[in-house]
């Protein structure tokens, strides 16, 4: 392995300033939305007492699971000792931090009382997986920062594999915790299953890698840094495997639910009669987010093209977002089974609704997008300030013995 030199991005291009300006615009819009949601209350959003978690939660969880997954590349290099990936490990750990901060910002700004964040940090109910997640998220940021420090500081290099192993184990626990937010909900038929944890882990790995590939392509395109085919193709193959892994868990989830007679109702709702949820499941997740990217990544006709790798990564993100929408909103839209064996003929609180409606408000979307903007801004500024990117990503600059 050659000695890789790292550099900061030049930060003089229109793309750099444009990216910062667009990010600041979306962050401002998000903060404005958060202000309005706090000032007027959540009544101005599409969320209700039936659909209590809405669009902000989808963005937040999307970013949080992606943050865990984007560390793939660093883990592969330090835990699985694939040195070919080592030059990209810094970017990988940086993105893990910035994506998590973006996701957590959305989550916090959506709280009914975001001013009580200090309470969330000082009062813990250790039976709550949510409380554990607060510790896991904060710990992950700290561990990734230490991991980065060990990577970048020559004197600490010998501890770098240990830090990598801790980060690897921590992120698996973290995504288990995020999946368990739903898996441990006994009340709702769409959740209440342990498979949520591995499903979220698989989803985090595929979303994280897709984001990593997109950032890599944008960065190299913008900075005219040489980007070898090998650098792209090895993670590309892995992306296909991870998309397949998500599909496996989704399949296992639905097959087990279809087997349980008591859950036929919610399965019919998601898979056949759920309107937007059914469309998003088959069209968004399965076709756009699974079949199409697999085709782009593995079919001989597309497999060598960078455009198809970029398209497959973007489609993976669309698929993951759709799947989260179906899980989070669809799971709430299907009414609770409070009176088994009974038909609800009237109710003062929508127990008789066949489905709880939800239309995301523009405020929620603004807040959600600001999470992505926060992640993007932090990433760009970090790349400008510190040397995270190798000077060249040409295959032979990374590995002299490289053969694709």
């Amino acid at each position, binding site marked *: 392995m050659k000695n890789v030199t790292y550099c900061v991005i030049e930060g003089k291009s229109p793309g750099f300033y444009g990216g910062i300006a667009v990010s600041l615009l979306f962050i401002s819009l998000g903060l404005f939305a958060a202000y309005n949601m706090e000032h007027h*209350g959540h009544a101005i959003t599409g969320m209700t*007492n039936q659909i209590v978690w809405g669009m902000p939660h989808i963005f937040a969880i999307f970013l949080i699971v992606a943050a865990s997954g984007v560390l793939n590349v660093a883990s592969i290099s330090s835990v699985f000792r694939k040195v070919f990936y080592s030059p990209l490990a810094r970017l990988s750990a940086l993105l893990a931090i910035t994506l998590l901060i973006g996701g957590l910002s959305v989550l916090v700004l959506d709280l009914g009382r975001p001013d009580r964040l200090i309470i969330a940090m000082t009062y813990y109910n250790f039976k709550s997986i949510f409380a554990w997640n607060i510790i896991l998220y904060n710990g992950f940021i700290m561990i990734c920062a230490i991991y980065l420090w060990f990577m970048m500081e020559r004197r600490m290099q010998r501890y770098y594999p240990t830090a990598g192993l801790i980060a690897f184990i921590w992120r698996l626990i973290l995504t288990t915790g995020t999946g368990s937010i739903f898996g441990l909900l006994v009340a709702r038929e769409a959740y209440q299953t342990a498979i949520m944890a591995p499903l979220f882990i698989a989803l985090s790995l595929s979303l994280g890698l897709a984001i990593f590939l997109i950032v890599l392509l944008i960065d190299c395109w913008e900075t005219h840094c040489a980007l070898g085919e090998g650098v792209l193709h090895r993670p590309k193959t892995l992306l296909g495997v991870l998309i397949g892994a998500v599909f496996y868990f989704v399949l296992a989830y639905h097959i087990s639910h279809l087997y349980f007679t008591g859950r036929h109702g919610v399965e019919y709702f998601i898979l056949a009669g759920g309107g937007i949820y059914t469309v998003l499941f088959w069209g968004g997740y399965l076709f756009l987010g699974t079949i199409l990217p697999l085709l782009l990544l593995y079919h001989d006709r597309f497999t060598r093209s960078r455009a198809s790798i970029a398209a497959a990564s973007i489609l993976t993100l669309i698929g993951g977002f759709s799947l989260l929408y179906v899980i989070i909103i669809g799971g709430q839209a299907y009414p609770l089974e409070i009176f088994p064996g009974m038909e609800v003929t009237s109710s003062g609180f929508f127990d008789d609704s066949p489905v709880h409606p939800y239309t995301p408000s523009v405020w929620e979307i603004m807040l959600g997008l600001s999470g992505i903007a926060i992640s993007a801004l932090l990433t760009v500024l970090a790349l400008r300030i510190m040397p995270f990117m190798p000077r060249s990503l040409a295959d032979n600059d990374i590995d002299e013995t490289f053969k694709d």
Partner: protein
Amino acid sequence: MSEDINPNRRAFLKTTAAVAGVTVVAPGVLLYGVSQAKPADEAVTSDVRWGMLIDTTKCADGCDACVNACTAEHGLTEDSSPETKAHWIRKVGLRDKQTGRESSLPMLCQHCENPPCVDVCPTGASFKRADGIVLVDRHICIGCRYCMMACPYKARSFIHETLENQKPHTPRGKGTVESCTLCVHRVDSGGEPACVEACSQADHKAMLFGDMKDPNSEISKKLSEVSSTALRADMGLNPGVRYQGL
């Protein structure tokens, strides 16, 4: 000389005697109630478990007395949309899918022995008192709504708007979650929840409140006599609210 007693005067004397009697006796009765109540400086204990037995055969379809009483008692009068308005108690009409038998019941926080809302709350704002009443500490509720996701009975409401004209005994706040308190302010003074009182006043007497741990309480005696149902008993939450005739 005999003097005829004026019938009006007789009536006056009777009324005066009755009023005097009530004036003398009533405070004693009230004080007895207060003496049975928990002193304000004494912590609640697990020696009691407050609960409710609802007789669905007596709950009249179309009667909203309990709901209205709750609204008035706690000042749940905000002019919000039905989807975002707080509902601490609601009426539900049911039809058995097999037999077609219809019933009506009030649905409120079931004050579970093992409440999922308490389990999931990250800060411990959702809590259960030793006497079984499940409450929200509005001072440390951060408004994450995870408890609403976890409640199997959809008993909780998030406050979506600024509130005005709050009742001193029911502090509420925008951005926090709330639910039936079992009228804890009344219970701690030896009273019963407003909904139960309203149901009695409407002459339905479908709601019975009391200490489920006291074998001599009316509710315990009734529970030992009649068949009652816990909603979603399969979850093992052991709710403090039971339904008869469901």
